[in-house]
């Protein structure tokens, strides 16, 4: 919770700075003494992991931008020059490309954590909404970034997605031309995508600041979903959560490094190692894995405009989440019925991702994936617009502990601490 600051400057220098710019005070209050629930588990470390990922992407991105050339005739070769001629260019490039996948893996875990523990519920609605905004900015950044190497997938993925705008009645094709800077994806498009790809991460950084600021007003939620009732329920952020975040971050970096050094092209598409050719369409056009669920939704609707509306609707739905859930209980730990629907949603999202990766007419065991995608899209909207409102009203929640301290320390210890 934000309360009065407990920072006391120790030296003359600290006092001098504190009177002019209370930055040490801010760091002290937000990172050192910030009272944090003592029962946060592994799923709560992904916020710190995401901040790390943003930092890594910005730093590697800035170094890549020193060598990259955003021109349709030179881009592909400039990336290969980074891979072959720039000292450790291959390392910086692979960290950046795999870092994007790690960033999205972490953000999906972070979002599903929020869904499961009810972190979007009052008074944390704005934290969730700001978070969805960050997610949309990430998707835009990743989309622009994937175009930059100017491979076949870069070009054709850009063509497919920007063409969606032409589905808008009357103004659609004009919007598309305006976005392209030309009558089709080309050099003008590449240049502006590079500019936007450089810009958006800094906007993300600012919005992340708002996200953390909004979090620090009510303080963290916790796996029990119950409010902090006394100081015994919390521990200071440092050293308890600085060391815990550091440990889990290190495990995450091990996972990250395994891909960078031993499977750097695992998440990629071989077609993107072929230079973009406007005259040759690849047999299958797919985005990167983290955009596949939405791609599957888009392709499952036969009408172009309706497909765009459904895909957009899926994202807009997330903004309404805090008001769709009617449950008084926050955490799915105590919501036996909603818990099952939650896990079904996780599976459905994975299924959508798989459908998005296959060609439109693919079938598994005789079942056309198109119908699997339609069913999965239906469940996605069912979950948010029907299940969340109704289950909250009809469900019988399990008994909720009296306090965090009692749950973690046990009855006698909690009573003794009071």
């Amino acid at each position, binding site marked *: 919770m934000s309360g009065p600051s407990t920072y006391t400057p120790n030296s003359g220098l600290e006092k001098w700075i504190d009177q002019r710019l209370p930055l040490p005070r801010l760091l002290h209050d937000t990172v050192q003494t910030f009272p944090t629930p003592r029962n946060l588990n592994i799923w709560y470390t992904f916020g710190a992991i995401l901040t790390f990922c943003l930092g890594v992407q910005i730093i590697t991105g800035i170094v890549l931008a020193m060598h990259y050339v955003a021109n349709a005739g030179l881009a592909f070769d400039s990336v290969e020059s980074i891979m072959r001629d720039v000292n450790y260019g291959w390392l910086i490039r692979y960290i950046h490309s795999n870092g994007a996948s790690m960033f999205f893996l972490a953000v999906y875990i972070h979002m599903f954590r929020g869904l499961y523990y009810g972190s979007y519920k009052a008074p944390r609605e704005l934290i969730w909404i700001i978070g969805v905004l960050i997610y949309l900015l990430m998707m835009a950044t990743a989309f622009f970034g994937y175009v930059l190497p100017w491979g076949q997938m870069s070009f054709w993925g850009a063509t497919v997605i920007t063409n969606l705008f032409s589905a808008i009645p009357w103004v659609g094709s004009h919007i598309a031309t305006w976005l392209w800077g030309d009558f089709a994806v080309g050099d003008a498009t590449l240049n502006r995508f590079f500019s936007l790809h450089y810009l958006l991460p800094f906007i993300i950084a600012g919005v992340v600041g708002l996200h953390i600021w909004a979090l620090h007003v009510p303080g963290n939620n916790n796996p029990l979903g119950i409010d902090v009732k006394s100081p015994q329920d919390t521990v200071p952020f440092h050293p308890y959560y600085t*060391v*815990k975040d550091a440990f889990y971050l290190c495990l995450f970096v091990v996972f990250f*490094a395994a891909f960078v050094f031993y499977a750097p092209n695992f998440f990629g598409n071989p077609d993107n190692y*072929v230079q973009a050719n406007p005259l040759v369409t690849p047999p299958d056009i797919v985005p990167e894995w983290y955009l596949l669920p939405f791609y599957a939704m888009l392709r499952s609707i036969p009408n172009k405009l309706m497909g765009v509306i459904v895909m957009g609707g899926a994202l807009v739905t997330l903004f309404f989440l805090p008001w769709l859930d009617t449950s008084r209980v926050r955490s799915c730990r105590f919501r036996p019925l909603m818990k099952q629907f939650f896990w079904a949603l996780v599976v459905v999202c994975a299924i959508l991702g798989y459908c998005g990766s296959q060609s439109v007419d693919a079938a598994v065991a005789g079942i056309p994936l198109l119908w699997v995608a339609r069913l999965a899209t239906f469940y996605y909207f069912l979950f948010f617009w029907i299940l969340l409102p109704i289950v909250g009203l009809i469900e019988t929640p399990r008994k909720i502990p009296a306090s965090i301290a009692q749950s973690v320390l046990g009855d006698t210890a909690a009573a003794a601490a009071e």
Partner: protein
Amino acid sequence: MLALPALAQTAVDTTRKPVKSVDFSFEGPFGTYDRAALQRGFQVYKEVCAACHGLDHIAFHNLDEEGGLGFTEAQAKAIAAGYKMPADPNDKGEIFDDKGTRLTRPGILADKFPNPFPNEEAARANNGGALPPDLSMIVKAREGGPQYVYSIVTGFGMTPPKGYTLPAGKYFNPYFEGWNISMPPPLADNAVTFSDGTKATVDQEAHDVVTFLAWASDPKMEERKRMGFAVLIFLVVLSGLLFAAYRKVWADAH
């Protein structure tokens, strides 16, 4: 007899066969490039493939790189000098001699491997309308990687199944999507004479040229895997230390 090749074509599923199962020394977390295979593969590229395929991203100075073919700088310079590059304008600004032939100079380390054709149109005209792809990234640019390239170059010589008609000017290769590839079988027994005396079977030539092309696609592989080993050991030890710190800090909180 009425032949209906178009109908016969649509009746047969021409999805490419799964790639052949073949192992390479550079696969796996501790894989390295076999230097001798790289040099033999380079010889195959030079004497067979370079007639039609470019290697745009490889420069002569890459030949003496660490983790590569193991040539010395002098050897790489000699290889470069064996090529004729278009000369820069002389003092009079000429780039053609009196007879109208393009002036040339010997290659230097900084030059990239020259393209066999001056432009895409010439390449297509020489190859029945199809463009021989550049090979400097081919192993990374194809699903199936080295196994796919190996399957393609060794996948010729089979009889097409009944009901499938091969279009004129194409060659049957079931490892290629659509089964008809514009490239004639590139390899044959003893198509090259290896300088180290290795028997030049099709399999050997294919294996070595794929090793060379894998290096061309990923010259930093050995450095990457070496660094990865050190980095992962470091991170695992660091995780252990952080875990110990985590347990110590939280010991009194539970």
